[in-house]
């Protein structure tokens, strides 16, 4: 009897506590709404209210994804009023589960870089329906109601830049090999489409031929073996467009092992330290197209503004835009020193 009573009293007490907490959250929201009107600057580091942001990213076993995580944390650390948690998932399924659990924790905003945009769209929609705004990074959800705001690199533009660079270098005459990323995700499709579309426009005579186009799965050992086979099939290669700097290291090794590094040049994507070092030294690795990992910091900053009901002060009226596209850039031996600060491991 006494035990039952004890349990009941605990339950009652916790309900009371939750109720109080909820009230206080409600109150502070009112406060920040009033603050919003007077303070619309994006650079403020403290707003008097704590914002909880949960970010969910794929496994950070890849240089660029590692940089994304670091950058998100660094941005969160700059704000005293941000309570930040970073979740790393092993695959799309476990990421969906992690986000389900995150929804239960009721953060103010979710920041999601999905392993697979299409697969994680339903769970993002669920978060939005539960009243938790979602900021989507890089890999797009497939429904417009799955995210409040989106920050993305321009994968199509990366392909455009690569086609222009390679077209110029070859003076619109030569054979190109494309080593793609993981088949079936928008990042790969866009990098390929931007490249092929632009090559047609830039070299309308068809002087640049794509003689082989194969996936290397963003993986150095897959890049190595695929390139070994392509080198067997193609005796005349002038340039290689790879979708990723890490994977490109395997491609570079295949070309070196075949002693054909004097016959061709190669470009990467991403801006890794290794790639930048090789671009600086000159030789096979001629350029990389920077896909800025700082977009994660932008996403965290946007998430904070959304939670606080604020906006970009430069916009009239100040709002958080639906979509922010972070520009890509060409890094070559001439300008690599300017870009080295963006290099990641």
């Amino acid at each position, binding site marked *: 009897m006494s035990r039952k009573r004890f349990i009941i009293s605990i339950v009652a007490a916790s309900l009371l506590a939750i109720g109080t907490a909820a009230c206080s959250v409600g109150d502070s929201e009112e406060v920040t709404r009033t603050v919003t009107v007077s303070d619309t600057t994006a650079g403020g580091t403290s707003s008097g209210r704590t914002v909880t942001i949960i970010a969910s990213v794929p496994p950070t076993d890849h240089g660029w994804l590692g940089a994304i995580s670091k950058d998100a944390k660094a941005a969160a650390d700059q704000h005293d009023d941000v309570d930040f948690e970073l979740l790393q998932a092993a695959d799309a399924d476990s990421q969906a589960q992690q986000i389900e659990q995150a929804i239960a924790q009721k953060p103010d905003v979710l920041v999601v870089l999905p392993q697979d945009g299409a697969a994680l769209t339903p769970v993002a929609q669920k978060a939005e329906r539960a009243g938790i705004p979602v900021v989507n990074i890089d890999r797009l959800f497939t429904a417009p109601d799955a995210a409040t705001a989106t920050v993305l690199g321009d994968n199509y533009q990366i392909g455009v830049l690569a086609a222009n660079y390679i077209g110029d270098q070859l003076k619109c005459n030569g054979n190109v090999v494309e080593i793609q990323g993981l088949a079936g995700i928008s990042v790969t499709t866009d990098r390929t489409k931007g490249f092929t579309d632009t090559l047609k426009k830039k070299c309308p005579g068809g002087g640049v031929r794509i003689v082989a186009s194969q996936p290397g799965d963003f993986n*150095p*050992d897959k890049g190595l073996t695929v390139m*070994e086979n392509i080198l067997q099939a193609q005796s005349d290669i002038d340039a290689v467009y790879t979708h990723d700097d890490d994977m490109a290291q*395997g491609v570079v*090794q295949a070309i070196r092992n075949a002693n054909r590094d004097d016959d061709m040049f190669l470009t990467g994507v991403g801006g890794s330290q290794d790639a930048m070092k090789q671009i600086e030294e000159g030789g096979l690795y001629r350029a990389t197209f920077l896909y800025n990992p700082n977009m994660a910091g932008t996403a965290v900053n946007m998430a904070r503004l959304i939670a606080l009901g604020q906006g970009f002060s430069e916009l009239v009226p100040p709002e958080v835009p639906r979509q922010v596209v972070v520009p890509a850039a060409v890094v070559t031996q001439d300008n690599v020193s300017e870009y080295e600060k963006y290099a990641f491991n």
Partner: protein
Amino acid sequence: MTPAQAAEPDQGGPEFSDRLKALRLQEYGLAAVVVLLFIAGSILKPETFPTWDNVRNMLTQASVIGVLAIGMTFVIATAGIDLSVGSMVAAAGVFGGILIGTDGTSSLVFILGAIAFATLLGVVNATAVAYARIVPFIATLAMFSIARGVALLLNDKLPVSLLDLNGGSFGDPRPFSLLWFGNGRIFGIPASVYVFVAITIAGWIVLNRTRYGRYVVAVGGNREAARIAGVPVRRIIFSVYVLSGLLAGVATVLLCARLGSASPVSGNLYELDAIGAVVIGGTSLAGGRATIVGTFLGVLTFALIFSLMTQLNLSTEVQQVTKGLIVLGAVLLQRSESRY
């Protein structure tokens, strides 16, 4: 009565000789698949496929999965499985890489370090399966995850460059330096191919001509009978997982030698190609029947498919469907032949 005889109750009877014949036919069937694939490649890509250079390339590529598949044959012969070999390749490579340090140049340290580390991971698998009695699928699935995590942890998710492990020579790497195992040749044949072929021959002798090999097959065929006959079942099971780890270490050396670096994301799903090669080769997933020649041919089949499809520049989706169909076809072809 020797233990091996007890473990194979069919031995001596007509059924046994039928089985033996079936096994041979299966090997012949797969040899036909290998020849057919080679002919197909020669017709579709007459200038670049049937060349000595491409054969050399295919054999080099086959050597990594090949070494893993020989170890896998022993594991599967005991009715076990090892899902962790790809992850072990990544972990062993990164371990060897951090062992030599940033300005180390000792190939021997890398080679022995990588092999020792993979063997150690194999010992963990072996202990889990043989002594903790965890089903092989689960024990090695756990290692699949653990070893990948270890590979990422060891060097803060970064790859380690091994380009200095050339024996101090900046042109062609010195014999027996790490890079030589990826790029060096003796009489025009790549060093890695010698390693693969030597391990295949050793595997064949051990499996077919030693008491240990008979014990391995006996344990997979009928564990209880083997135990009653006095086969040290637990020790045999323990040994095959250690062997699989050891050979994962050798595969690590062959892969890193060609890649010039040790990457924590390398070896992704290599276990599936290794298991696939073993099974289309004719080794039974239920244990008790194993063929090294079949495994060798299975490895060649996969290497030929991959090379041919890349040379033809088929799109990914077409490649995946084609690869699946060829695997199904290879298995069906063997089965219909073995009925006679």
